[in-house]
């Protein structure tokens, strides 16, 4: 290794290149001892990340990536040796080949099994997130591959919840929203090849950022109903081919509608409810999340429940009540409760659509029976089927 680093730092360009190839070849070894034998070379590999030819830089980047995958010792050494600032300057390379290499190297560090608390504060402290963001949102110029890898990098950073407030203050939310709108336009134009690869991490970043405890700064940037339309376009496009994306979309939809009446209102006035109801038979996570979004809407009050009722939410609920998934049925009961609470006539209609029979099958199911009984007693007594008493019941539940 001493000989090799000597050659690697030679002033003879050809020798230096050949030594880089040797190191690269060594980095392929599946023996961690080999990766660790290469430790003396890492400071030089990092030094060469800036200002060298594309091929040479590329070799150094992939060698570092391979070594980092293989050995925690290497990863631990790269941090003090200054890999973060080195990457930040390398990320400004105009060469796709170099950026692709970085798209390989960076996830190895961000995803490593050890405690993310060692690396993420350093990453967040650097210009890396902003460079990643730039590369993600310039996807079409640099090719999908680069954008996808850096979107995953951002996801690894965001889902570690180390300091998302900082990212939000840097404007990451509005950039991601604009990117999603662009991608929705691509869907409209039919250009969806490989789009799901990019969508998944972008949706995740946005959803997690919206869930931060201090979403005030997000709120301003997020009041854009076009985002809602985009989410539905994605679900429609990928429901058959990539169903996993639907739940990622519904997660975002939940985080949009949970606290923002504007999105609940838009969901109804844009007539997107039927599309949402069509997702209810999908089973599992999708059904549960779709019901949760409906609950978010219903929770906003009588005007919202009236719309839900007019758009035939009850027949769909009668179907989900027939499912065996206790979580799904439980969430259906929650939705019924909100509907009956805010809109007594919904209870009457539920009775007339044989709702009691649908509830009856869950009367003896421990996690559900209390709520079934409460619905029956509060809203579905034959005598209480008039709109009078439920209104009083609901009034009692509200703060005056």
């Amino acid at each position, binding site marked *: 290794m001493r000989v090799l680093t000597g050659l690697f730092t030679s002033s003879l360009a050809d020798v230096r290149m050949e030594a880089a190839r040797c190191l690269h070849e060594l980095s392929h070894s599946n023996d961690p001892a080999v990766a660790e034998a290469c430790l003396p070379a890492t400071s030089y590999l990092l030094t060469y990340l800036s200002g060298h030819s594309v091929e040479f830089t*590329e070799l150094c980047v992939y060698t570092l990536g391979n070594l980092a995958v293989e050995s925690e010792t290497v990863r631990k050494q790269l941090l003090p040796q200054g890999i973060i600032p080195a990457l930040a300057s390398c990320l400004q390379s105009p060469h796709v080949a170099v950026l692709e290499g970085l798209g390989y190297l960076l996830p*190895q560090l961000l995803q490593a099994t050890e405690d993310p608390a060692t690396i993420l504060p350093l990453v967040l402290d650097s210009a890396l997130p902003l460079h990643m963001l730039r590369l993600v949102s310039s996807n079409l110029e640099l090719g999908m591959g680069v954008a996808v890898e850096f979107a995953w990098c951002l996801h690894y950073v965001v889902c570690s919840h180390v300091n998302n407030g900082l990212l939000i203050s840097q404007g990451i939310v509005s950039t991601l929203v604009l990117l999603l709108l662009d991608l929705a336009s691509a869907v409209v134009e039919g250009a969806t090849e490989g789009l799901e690869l990019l969508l998944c991490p972008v949706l995740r970043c946005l959803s997690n950022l919206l869930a931060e405890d201090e979403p005030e700064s997000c709120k301003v940037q997020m009041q854009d109903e076009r985002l809602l339309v985009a989410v539905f376009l994605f679900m429609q496009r990928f429901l058959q081919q990539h169903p996993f994306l639907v739940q990622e979309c519904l997660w975002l939809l939940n985080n949009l509608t949970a606290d923002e009446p504007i999105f609940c209102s838009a969901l109804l006035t844009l007539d997107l409810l039927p599309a949402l109801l069509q997702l209810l038979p999908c089973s599992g996570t999708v059904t549960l999340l779709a019901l949760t979004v409906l609950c978010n809407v219903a929770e906003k009050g009588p005007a919202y429940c009236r719309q839900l009722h007019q758009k035939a939410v009850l027949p769909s609920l009668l179907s989900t009540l027939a499912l065996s998934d206790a979580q799904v049925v439980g969430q259906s009961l929650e939705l019924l409760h909100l509907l009956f609470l805010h809109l007594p006539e919904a209870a009457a209609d539920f009775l007339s659509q044989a709702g009691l029979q649908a509830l009856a099958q869950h009367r003896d199911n421990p996690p559900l029976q209390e709520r079934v009984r409460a619905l029956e007693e509060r809203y579905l007594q034959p005598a209480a089927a008039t709109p009078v008493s439920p209104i009083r019941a609901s009034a009692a539940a509200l703060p005056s």
Partner: protein
Amino acid sequence: MLLPPGLSLSLQAERPLLPVRPRSPPRAPFCFSARRLRFHRQHEFFEDGDIHRHLYLQDILTNVTEVTERSKVSEFSCHIVGCCQVFDTLEGYEHHYNTLHRNMCSFCKRSFPSGHLLDTHILEWHDSLFQIMAEKQNMYQCLVEGCAEKFKSSKDRKDHLVKVHLYPSDFRFDRPKKAKSSIKHSKPHSKRDVSMPMDVNVETCEQSQADSMEICPSESTENPTQLASGPIPSVQEKQLYKSRIPSTVCFGQGASRGFKSLKKKA
């Protein structure tokens, strides 16, 4: 899934907000309360999407070998005065230029591997105020980009590099200053002399200095990653097989390898 017709037209129109009822706490036994969800990186919600990504990466890695054709051009020589190297590919020239000329000190014609090291060199070797300043305050800045530390002497800096940045103790780009005269008295530079401090000079890496970098016996890594070495790149006249990433990879949690695009030069 059917969306309402003309939905995309409604992208611009303003819509009135339906009146909102102030939120009330759920009344037992009901418990629903709208809340934003956040998922941590290990959350099972991510499973389906992560699997899809792993399949994508695996697919790419099976196609990792690429062929790059280097188009030859008629021979040309380096345009830097005093350098007479000849090339027949643009890539060869690019690499030569970046190695020898890109970060070259215009005073003493030595080359440096990065702009940061060149700046440091110029400050320390050719700035007439440097020595005077260095007697009063710490002037030797750390060689690691992004580290703001400064030191009284290059010896202190070296100790810092080794201790804090885990640099090899014989870091070759931080050779101590030679005789003072060498500043003023740079020889007419033949190609050989261009970058003295980075000559291939294996025997200067003394045994003792390398000790601190010696490797402990391998600790077993936790990654369930299995690798097989990729095809050996053979440099041929016209083709260069490059395989950046070992070709067979098993994915386990936290051990997925990145991608390699399948670019091909026409």
